[in-house]
Every structure is written in C-alpha cells, then in structure tokens.
C-alpha cells in the first residue's frame, strides 16, 4: 500500500469512486438542462423541482398504488414528463410565441376554481391540484375553440423571462409538496434485488451505487447518440437553428419542441427516482442540488450535450477529492472551478462562442 499526499491510496480510490457516483447525478441532471437549453433556449430553473417530483412520484406509486421501484423507474419519468409537457403548453410556449392569453385563461380559471374549492373546504394541496387541472382543461378548450393565433415561430424572447417563469414554477411546486408532506422527508427503501454490496478490497461498494453509475452512463450515452447521430436528432437540431424553414419542410416543430421539453423533464424525474433510495426524499432535495448542477452546465458550456455529461462526471470526481483533502470546501470547490473556467473560456469547456 502506498500513499498519495499522505492519504492511503485505498482511501483515495474509494473517494474517487464515490465522486463518480455523485458525478452521475450531476451528469443526468445537467444533461436534461443542456437538452432543454440547447433545443428550446429555456433556462429551466424548475429542473430541481422536477427531480424532486420524480422521487415523490416514486414514493406515491409505492404507498398509494403498491407499485415498486422498477416500475417507478419507468412510470415516474413518464408522469413527470407529462407534467412538463403541460407546463410547456400552458406557460413556456405561449411566452415564447408572445401569445400569453392562454396562460391568462389558465391562471384565472385556476384561481377562480381554487376560491370555490377552498370555500367547499377541501384539503388545500388536493384543492390546488384540482383547480390547476380545471385551469388546464379550460386553457386547452380555449386554445381549441378560441380565436386562432399564428405564431411566427422563429422569435426567441429573452432568456431572463424563461428563467423567471420556471423559477416561479419551482417555488410553487416545492410549496405545494411542503404543505402536503412537510420537510422531514419520506422513507423509501433500496429495492431488494440491489441491496447488499461488493467488497472491492479498497472499499465496500453498495450494489445500488454501482447500479446508479451504470444506469446514468447508459442514459447519457443513449441521449447523446439520439441527438447527435440519428435522423430524429437531426430534425431537432435543425428545428432549433431555424424553426421556420424546418416547418416549411413539413416537420411539426411545436410538437417536436414540446416533446423535447417533456423528455428533459423526464430525465430529471429519472434522476429523482434513482436518488430516492439513497437521499432523503423531501421537497427541498432539488433546490439544494440545482445550483450545483447549473454550475456544471455553465462549466461544460451552455447547451453542449457531451460537455454537460463529461463535466458532470469530472466535477463529481473533483468534489470527491476535495472531501478527502479539505472537506469544509467541498460545497464550494465547484464554484471555484466555475470561476476559473469562465475566466479562461467564457463559453465553457465545450461551448461554442457566439
């Protein structure tokens, strides 16, 4: 056994492996953010809340419907992704199209419904969910039968609006969950197939952590492959560059973009389900993580898919090393790296300069 800077090599390898595990969460979350930013030009601040929703949906499936971890892995991303699609249809798309009447219809109907429901004395969180549902239905009907509106399609509003919109959404979502479930957290166990662990000689690796790394790498690779190497990915990237032209070729660009947002949100939810057995499932779990993940995206280069994945894993390693040498700084080290990278390469490590 040899030592590196006074730390036994065995301990160091253990810490590097743990860094890789944390890195897989960073990678999956920043991947979703990068996909959404790269293809929709939206800085999705609700990503942390959607990650939290993934974990909560897994818990709800188990406790209300008796559906276990493996199905939750599939169902939670789909359900939360659908939620993301509703969010996009009712708020993000109208904002990008400069046609916010639909959002107004939705908000006003929801508020009216909420007033009536509160008057009837229903549980506040349930009442909120019901009134939002009523709002969505009203907005959809209005969209279908109300005055028609032709979006110009290729105009992008300032990033700041998207950021503020999604940030507000995140606060609302967290508030609803906090009101219903409190902040102490909810218990969610490791699936029996993955309990226990392997003794690697230099450390004890729980099977579940190994699974997290494998699953995350697989998802990242598949996403990268689909977007960079397939025809569907080519459409997506073209639609981002010039939506009007791509629409002229007969591609349904608005649908493509909405589905992409749903996919990005689904990725966050998947990370949430993966996190549920090892982290405390509570309404603030995403808010704590999202700032770090944004730093990862900025270091990797906004919108760069490969960049976000590689930086996610790399920063997990950097953080793991800091926890060995100077634990007090482990919450800060990523931001130090961010400052250094931005000084040298303002567009991020893998970003394209505009």
């Amino acid at each position: 056994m040899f030592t590196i800077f006074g730390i036994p090599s065995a301990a160091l390898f253990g810490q590097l492996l743990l860094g890789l595990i944390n890195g897989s969460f960073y990678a999956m979350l920043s991947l979703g953010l990068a996909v959404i930013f790269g293809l929709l030009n939206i800085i999705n601040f609700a990503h942390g809340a959607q990650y939290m929703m993934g974990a909560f949906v897994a818990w709800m499936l188990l406790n209300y419907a008796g559906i276990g971890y493996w199905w939750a892995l599939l169902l939670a991303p789909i359900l939360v992704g659908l939620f993301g699609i509703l969010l996009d249809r009712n708020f993000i798309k109208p904002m990008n199209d400069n046609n916010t009447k639909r959002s107004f219809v939705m908000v006003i109907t929801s508020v009216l419904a909420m007033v009536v429901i509160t008057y009837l004395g229903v549980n506040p969180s349930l009442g909120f969910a019901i009134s939002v549902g009523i709002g969505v239905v009203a907005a959809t009907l209005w969209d279908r039968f109300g005055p028609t509106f032709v979006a110009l399609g290729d105009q992008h509003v300032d990033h700041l609006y998207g950021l503020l919109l999604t940030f507000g959404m995140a606060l609302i979502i967290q508030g609803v969950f906090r009101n219903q479930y409190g902040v102490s957290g909810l218990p969610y166990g490791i699936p029996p197939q993955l309990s226990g662990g392997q003794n690697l000689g230099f450390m004890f690796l729980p099977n579940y952590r190994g699974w997290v790394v494998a699953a995350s790498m697989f998802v990242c690779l598949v996403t990268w492959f689909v977007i960079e190497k397939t025809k569907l990915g080519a459409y997506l990237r073209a639609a981002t560059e010039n939506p009007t032209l791509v629409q002229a070729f007969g591609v349904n660009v608005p649908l493509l973009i909405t589905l992409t947002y749903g996919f990005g949100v689904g990725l966050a939810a998947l990370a949430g389900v993966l996190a549920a057995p090892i982290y405390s499932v509570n309404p603030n779990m995403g808010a704590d993580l999202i700032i770090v993940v944004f730093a990862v995206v900025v270091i990797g280069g906004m919108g760069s898919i490969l960049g976000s994945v590689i930086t996610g894993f790399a920063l997990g390693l950097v953080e793991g090393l800091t926890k060995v040498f100077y634990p007090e700084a482990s919450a800060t080290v990523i931001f130090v790296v961010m400052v250094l990278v931005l000084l040298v390469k303002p567009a991020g490590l893998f970003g394209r300069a505009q």
Partner: protein
Amino acid sequence: MNRGMLLVAATAATAFATGVAEAQVTVKLGVLNDRSGVYSDIGGEGSAVAARMAVEDFKAAEKGLKVEVVAADHQNKPDVGSNIARQWYDQDGVDVILDVPTSSVALAINQITRDKNKIFLNSGAASSDLTGAQCSPNTVHWTYDTVQLANVTGGAMVRQGGNTWFFLTADYAFGHALERDTAAVVTKNGGKIVGSVKTPFPSNDFSSFLLQAQASKAKVIGLANAGGDTVNSIKQAAEFGITQGGQSLAGMLVFVNDVQALGLKTAQGLVFSETFYWDENDATRAWSRRYGERMGGKMPNMTNAGVYSSVLHYLKAVEAEKSKDPQKVMARMKATPTDDPLFGKGSVRSDGRKMHDAFLLEVKKPEESKGPWDVAKILAKVPAEQTFRPLAESNCPLVGKS
C-alpha cells in the same frame, strides 16, 4: 406656549389611558422559527400551534390576560431573524420571543433580547452557550441542549463499550458545540476521539465522510448534525454496511420526525435522547392527541412541547406579578418551580437553564410498532441533575452573582 401645554396634556392623557388599559395585562408572544426550510417540521407551525394551545389551556382571557400569538419565518439565517426580532420588539409590541431553532439565529436573538430588555424563551436551539458563556438574564433555555444530549446519548454509548469515537459534524455553530460537548463527555468517561470531519451544511451526500469514519476504525460514529443531514447520514450508513461492520451510530440530535422520515426498517436500534416523548404517560398522550388533531395527525416533538410548557410557565408568572415587566417576570419564573403535564416538575436555574429529566430512547423494530407514530421505546429516564451542566462547572457570568 399654548401648543406646548396642549402637547403635555395630550401626553398625560395617553399615559393615563395606557395606565387604565394596563389593569388588564396585554401580552404578545412571537413564535420565531423555520417555517419553510430544513427545520420547519421540527418547529414551524407546530410550535405556533403549541403556543396557542398553552394560551387556551391557561384560560388567559378568564384570568384578565389578553394574549396574542404571532409567528414568523427566520429562514435559518441570523440576519433575517435579527431583523424580525428588532421589528417585533421596536414596532409591533412583542414581549416574548419563543422557539427559535438553529443555534446561530438563537444566539443573535439572545443578544438582541438582552439589549431591548425583553424575554426570550428558547425551545428549538441546541447550543449550550445560551446558558454558558453567552447566558443572559433575559433568556430561558427550555427544552434541551448540547450538554444534555452529550451526557445522555454519549454517556450511554461509552458505558456500552463504545470508547473510540469519530465525528461527522455539521459545519456551523450548533455542530461545533455538539461535537465539543460530546467529546468532553466521551473523554471524561475514559473514551477517546480518533477523528472528526466537518461537513458542509446542508449536505446531500455523506458517503465520503462515512467512508473516512469507517477507515478510522472508531467503534462509534457520532452524528453531530440535525434534520435532513442526520436522515441522509443514517440512510447512507445503512447502505454502506457501517453497522454490519461492527461500528455503531450515535445520532446526537434526533427528533421523532427524523425517525419517521427514515422509516423503522432503516432506523431500528438507533439510540437517541429527547426530553419529551409523546407516548410517555397518559397526560402526554392526551395532550399529543389534541395537538395531532390540529396538525393533521402529526405527533409533537420535544421542541413543540417545550414551547407549550414555557408559555404556560410565563403566563403563570405574569398572572402572579400582574405585570409583564421583564425583570419581575423573569425573577418570578426562576423563583417558582415549574409543573406541567408534559415535563412534570422542574425548575428554572439562575443561568436560565430549565431543569427537567431526559430520556434515553431506542428506535423500535418494525414489528414492535403499533401505529404510524409509535417509533421508540424509553430505555432510561435520566434525572435533570445528571444530564444538564452542573452550576459548579458553569462559565455563565450570572452564576457567580447569585
């Protein structure tokens, strides 16, 4: 001149009017705690509910006291908490601040309350400095503190043979105080501290720190943290097989809410300390059930119970003094023994420490539990004198004087 006379007359009239109103004493209690962040389940609305219950149970209105309870969110930030406290004291006419979890905020409020000569009845914070180096004639530290936690949980672990310790310490005032006081108990009982690591607050991932603890070969891993940090570290310790490896965990500050969040399957066997457990006797069960009815079935923890008990004792003192003058009320509170259904008989010491017995609890196995909040069994009841810091060892400047 005429104008001046008028002003004097008006002032006199106002003074007279307040004098008349004073016949019926009006007090305003401010519950200041975390209502949205990591500690909002520990204090939060639950403590405000407990304060209101105390006012109702005291039957304040019948006794000629007009009591109002207000609440605010300090977001666990000393600056936010200080601003609210100043506004409450200077503008809103608040007489007493209650609860205040998060030691850093509590120490700030402690100083402000002393400067403004009001009363601070702390229930939620842990740092023993509130009745130690920074003790104040205007503060009572009600429910628990780091010395008490260290004595009960730390002492029990060392007696069971856990004589080498490694700490995971939350990197702020509370964690540092808890580590310091626990280390003192461990060394006093012949144990040894083999290492410690300061973890950023709040943290999600404790696996690296747990691995360092594992490598230290210490028999006991002391968790000098609270809330979500404790939940995460216990959950991950189970995952990394820490307890199967022969090391045991000591949760230095664990609330029933945390046990609930972990689930009995993960938490079973964990030893922890509280000064109040809802299922102790008929009186605590009856009160807890009434609390639960207002909180959607949730059971109270020691912080909530402490707020209730402190409000009751304060109102008794105000009633006896027929005045809310802080110095008189504090003197009365310290002179009168405390007695309430939740903590039993006790007293308030000259350094501001409220004395009552503490419990050593153990988390039940899933098959032992009879309901959703039936989470722990009482292993031992430790008398107040053996659990809180003795006055002889106190570094509080007030102690010498009295």
